[in-house]
């Protein structure tokens, strides 16, 4: 089912959580809403689910072209997964998953045998077939999250809405579940919207990512586009570490290869796009002094200070490059910048 949101706003006590959001998710897509906390991503998800009403007068929410703005949460055929899992504590895993089936009006309610078969199938899908009689308190966080997912899928929703589904889990389990979710999605192909504040998660899992800030969608595109072609400084800054260069240098020497047209513009470079050289062979390098070296597993983070204005530049080198160069603190080197992105000053963060 496709989801379309046209001009939706939401205000809480004068605080504008969503301002005029337009957004369309195609059938079968897995879309992430990515942004810092308080940017309105969860509000947007809850508005789509029908748990929050959008401001009166603000635009319709269309499911497959049908207006569902005034439809109750139970009628929208959504599967919602909460960050807190919101499992029913006093029910076994089996009963949790069966809840949606048992709650159907008795005409549509499947027979007990059908419920058993369906729940068994879903538990198989989330790899918890041996845990049916356990209670939520006897499961680990990752298992609970999978139960929550199975419970949401039991009612055969046409949209799956996940609110920071892996937020409360530790890094390894997160990575595992992320991959599992991707696999699951390619198996069942239900339109899915995932809310997260973790860029790595959003980029890895989704077909498209909507980066949100202060109640607006800053950019909605594929992960590659978002990363390689960020629409504005906010998106660039949000998707990882960066170096920032302000405008042209007053002494006339250009700060970087592609500097912005106006004096107030900014240029961004990712640390891994900062190249360190011993020799300034073609004269385009910027002289800098190494002030600190930190190991980060597979790569090495080098902190440099520019000779001309003492501005700090971060560089990330592969272990190989680092060893080849034989860098030591206080070494004088030259840096070159690849893949710089410049933005003019009309954009205020």
């Amino acid at each position, binding site marked *: 089912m496709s989801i379309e949101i046209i001009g939706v706003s939401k205000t809480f006590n004068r605080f504008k959580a969503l301002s005029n959001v337009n957004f369309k998710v195609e059938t079968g897509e897995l879309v992430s809403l990515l942004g810092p906390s308080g940017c309105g991503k969860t509000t947007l998800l809850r508005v789509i689910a029908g748990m929050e009403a959008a401001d009166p007068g603000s635009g319709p929410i269309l499911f497959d072209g049908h207006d569902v703005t005034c439809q109750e*949460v139970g009628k929208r055929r959504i599967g919602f997964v909460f960050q807190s899992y919101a499992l029913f504590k006093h029910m076994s895993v089996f009963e949790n998953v069966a809840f949606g089936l048992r709650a159907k009006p008795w005409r549509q309610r499947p027979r007990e045998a059908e419920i058993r078969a369906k729940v068994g199938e879903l538990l198989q899908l989330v790899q918890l077939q041996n845990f049916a009689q356990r209670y939520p308190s006897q*499961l680990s966080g990752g298992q609970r999250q999978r139960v929550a997912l199975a419970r949401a899928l039991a009612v055969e929703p046409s949209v799956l809405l996940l609110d920071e589904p892996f937020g409360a889990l530790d890094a390894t389990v997160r990575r595992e579940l992320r991959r599992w979710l991707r696999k699951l999605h390619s198996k069942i192909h239900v339109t899915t919207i995932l809310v997260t504040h973790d860029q790595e998660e959003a980029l890895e899992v989704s077909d498209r990512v909507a980066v949100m800030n202060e109640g607006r969608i800053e950019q909605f595109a594929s992960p590659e586009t978002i990363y390689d072609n960020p629409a504005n400084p906010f998106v660039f800054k949000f998707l990882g570490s960066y170096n920032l260069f302000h405008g042209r240098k007053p002494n006339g020497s250009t700060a970087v290869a592609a500097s912005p047209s106006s004096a107030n513009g900014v240029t961004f470079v990712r640390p891994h796009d900062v190249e360190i050289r011993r020799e300034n062979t073609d004269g385009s390098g910027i002289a800098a002094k190494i002030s600190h070296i930190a190991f980060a597993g597979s790569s090495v983070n080098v902190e440099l200070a520019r000779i001309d204005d003492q501005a700090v530049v971060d560089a990330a080198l592969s272990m190989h490059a680092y060893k080849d160069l034989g860098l030591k603190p206080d070494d004088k080197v030259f840096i070159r910048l690849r893949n710089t992105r410049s933005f003019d000053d009309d954009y205020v963060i």
Partner: protein
Amino acid sequence: MAGAPHQNPTMGGTGKPAPPTHPLVRRVTIAVTVLFLSVFIVVPVVNVFSQALSKGFDAYASVFYAASPPEGAKLSPAERRKLSSDRSQAEKTWSSIRLTMGIAAVVVPLNIVFGLAAAWSVTKFRFKGRSLLITLIDLPFSVSPVIAGLIFVLLLGRSGVFGPWASNLTWPDPFSLHWRGFAQEWWPFAFTQSFTGIIFTPLAIALASIFVTFPFVARSLIPLMDSQGSDEEVAALSLGASGWRTFRTVTLPNVKWALLYGVILCTARVFGEFGAVSVVSGHTDANDTMPLRIEKLWNEYNNQAAFTVASLLALLAVVTLVVQVLVERKTGKAAMTEVEGVDMP
């Protein structure tokens, strides 16, 4: 539970890490607590029972059942007077027990409904005046019960604000409901007795009791429901459950122990309430609840009988206490498994 693999060793009463204190401090604080409890609770309760049984078990029983003389025995006029007075005393005591139970049977269910509604509205919704509402729920705790009784007298008494309406109100006695059959009308039940007016009738006692006890259920539910949030309810709704089903299968099971705890406290207070009930009862024998009956017996210098009825109340309190401890253990366990779960990998 000790063998469970997911048991968190830092949880539970004895395993909790204690702050470093001097052993003397610990001994002194424990001694003070024990001494205080003995002086103010254990000694008075023991005294109640010893006074009640001071004239032997037969005297204890005769407060409830006046002993009948042997068949065909000749009674002197004095003995006969004594017997009939004993019988009427026992009948009054039974009437007070019946009334107390009846009031509790009316007040406690009403307070359950009210307490659930109040706790639900205050914890699941955010609205203007919410904190004011919470304060109002607590009001009966801070108002003297005598004042509470007086409020009803001043509202519903003969010269009260609603006096003219209230003193002419005729309402059937719910305990006089009986089967009449279909002969007279299609409705087979009828009341044989009715009351006129509100003040100085059991209705006023019920009203005063409701006022005094309504915070108990709400108060025991609010902290729990507040901490649980409404995610589970929203989840149930999003799965297509109706509001009633959500309440019945999700909300109620989550709060059942806290609810039972509130009901226990509420019941204990209804049984024991004196001040508010005393003001609105009119001091007629028919309107005596157990505490009022105790006072009357005491004023008639019938100490042993007074303590006997008091011992019955104390017994109820002990039963309540036992149930309360069981429930607390249950809720404690529930809270514990929840915390355990969070700590799990």
